[in-house]
């Protein structure tokens, strides 16, 4: 992810000069003191204003009208909860102190102001900002304030900061589900068939054509005929992650959509790290997908697709049948969904009927609110029963479901399926 600083450009901004808050207070003190001195005819009030008047006397009328600023980001893409550094380079006005403050955009956490003291012809500062939620976000507005030596005048320039792509924080997942039947493609999972892997599979009698270096001498001595050691083949598996973006319920920052994206990002990262071929289907207002693949570039493509697809609730046709190209035969399908959209339930039935091994990670962690009346609580109870019925019906057709709270690691809910191979039923 580390890339050279992304240039955003050099800009010439107009400086708007005015009294500083400090100078306004001095003016207030001086005017109020002089007025009271005149009205009450008390000379001591005129004397009271002397320090303020003397400090105001250092006011300079001629000031620069423009500044040159160059802004760049250390990376165009970050993961939510991590810092992005905005590098600000100011040229000219080196006799004035400069202060950088950021009025942050939505879901952006800004640090404190950065002071750039006078005395350097080229001044560079790095401002740390932290996106707290995934999405394409505006970082906010950078306010550059120049102050003169006596703190009386302030020149302000405002610059819109660039947008940044913030990706969801991948959920923790260290184990992986491995299917019992794997496609014949070289990988890292020991398969049932024998091959050139490193895991011991058994001992059998020698047949012409076998490699002599695999002769098992103890077995050969015992049986009196030549025997060989055989090893399990190592295969890769196709994993397709389905992210259900049709619904978004719950508190901001921990909605079902947040959990769907974080869970999907975690699964994609984990399976690609295990050299599996991973694909992604975004189940939203429209269907978007990328077929299984491998490698770092593929990883970036999948995460980009996840961020590019807008969530939606609009009716779209053709969602119930997932395309064949997106789902290679024998794939393991991991679905992240709150299971609230009946179209997704139908789609899951469809893929199960087509013989895929499917596991659903249920991310629903909220219920409809009710005001406490009897009718309302009855409706809530009916809703819960309906949800239980949906999950039960999926289990009945061979689609197991696990519940994930969005906080803990995904290893915990998936533990029953990661301890041993998942038998692929047809």
């Amino acid at each position, binding site marked *: 992810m580390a890339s050279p600083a992304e240039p955003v450009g050099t800009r010439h901004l107009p400086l708007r000069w005015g009294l500083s808050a400090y100078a*306004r207070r001095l003016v207030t003190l001086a005017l109020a003191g002089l007025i009271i001195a005149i009205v009450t005819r008390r000379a001591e009030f005129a004397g009271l204003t002397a320090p303020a008047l003397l400090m105001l006397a250092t006011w300079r009328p001629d000031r620069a009208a423009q500044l040159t600023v160059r802004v760049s980001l250390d990376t165009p893409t970050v993961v939510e909860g991590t810092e992005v550094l905005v590098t600000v380079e100011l040229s000219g006005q080196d006799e004035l102190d400069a202060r950088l403050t950021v009025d942050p955009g939505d879901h952006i956490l800004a640090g404190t102001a950065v002071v750039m003291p006078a005395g350097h012809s080229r001044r560079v500062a790095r401002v740390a900002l932290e996106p707290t939620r995934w999405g394409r976000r505006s970082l906010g507005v950078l306010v550059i304030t120049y102050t003169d030596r006596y*703190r009386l005048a302030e020149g302000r320039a405002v610059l819109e900061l660039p947008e940044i792509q913030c990706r969801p924080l991948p959920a923790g997942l260290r184990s992986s589900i491995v299917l019992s039947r794997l496609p014949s493609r070289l990988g890292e999972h020991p398969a049932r068939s024998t091959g050139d892997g490193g895991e011991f599979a058994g001992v059998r009698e020698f047949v012409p054509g076998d490699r002599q270096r695999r002769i098992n001498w103890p077995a050969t001595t015992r049986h009196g005929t030549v025997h060989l050691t055989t090893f399990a083949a190592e295969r890769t598996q196709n994993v397709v992650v389905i992210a259900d973006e049709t619904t978004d319920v719950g508190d901001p920052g921990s909605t079902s959509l947040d959990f769907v994206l974080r869970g999907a990002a975690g699964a994609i990262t984990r399976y690609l790290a295990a050299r599996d071929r991973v694909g992604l289907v975004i189940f939203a207002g429209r269907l978007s997908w990328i077929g299984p693949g491998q490698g770092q570039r593929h990883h970036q493509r999948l995460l980009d697709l996840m961020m590019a697809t807008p969530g939606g609730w609009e009716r779209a046709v053709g969602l119930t049948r997932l395309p064949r190209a997106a789902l290679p035969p024998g794939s393991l399908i991991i679905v992240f969904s709150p299971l609230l959209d009946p179209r997704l339930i139908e789609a899951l039935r469809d893929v199960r009927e087509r013989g895929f091994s499917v596991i659903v990670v249920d991310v629903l962690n909220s219920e409809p609110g009710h005001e406490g009346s009897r009718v309302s609580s009855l409706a809530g109870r009916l809703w819960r029963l309906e949800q239980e019925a949906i999950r039960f019906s999926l289990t009945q057709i061979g689609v197991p479901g696990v519940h994930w709270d969005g906080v803990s690691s995904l290893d915990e809910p998936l533990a029953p399926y990661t301890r041993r191979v998942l038998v692929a039923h047809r």
Partner: protein
Amino acid sequence: MKRDGTAQAPARLAPLRRRGLRLAAAATLGAAVIWWAAYPVSGGGGGTRLMLVIAIAAGAMSLAQLAVTATVTRHPDGLTAADRIAAHATGLVMMLPWAELMTVAVLVLEALHSSRPWHTAVLAVALTGYLLAVHLAETDAGASTLRALLPLLSAGLGLTALSVGSAALPDLPAGPVVTLIRIGAVALAAVAAGLAVPVWLGRGQ
């Protein structure tokens, strides 16, 4: 700031203690200024109590304003009732120039009492100190930034002392003491001019 002019990335928690100290200094000076201007409350003219209430309220709000400014900026999601209430409260605090209002209220409080030149001179020192403390707490600038102002502050305080002396002159009997005070006043004015004029001439540098 490094030698090449590169400023450090801001640390999140390090300046909190320094800010707390500056806020405490501004609060202490503000309270002292109000107390000094209002004391004795019974000795003031009509409206002293009302002005005292205004001064205390404005002082408290100016401190709240400083605290809000010093807090790490974070935009709430704006979805919950608590977020909306917090946004309204912040808007109310930031709406008016509370420090200026407090300054005017304190001066009026002082004016409501009978003439006491030395008392007003002390108030001038404390009030100037309060405004500087508010400025430092607001901008998070180091105390060294005030170094350039020291000659002007000294000259201003000298002139304040001069005004106290001139206010006291009519009450003194004619004689060598009055002559001595007049000579001292002229010398003080010369010193003040000597401090202030070079700063004024060099303000463009």
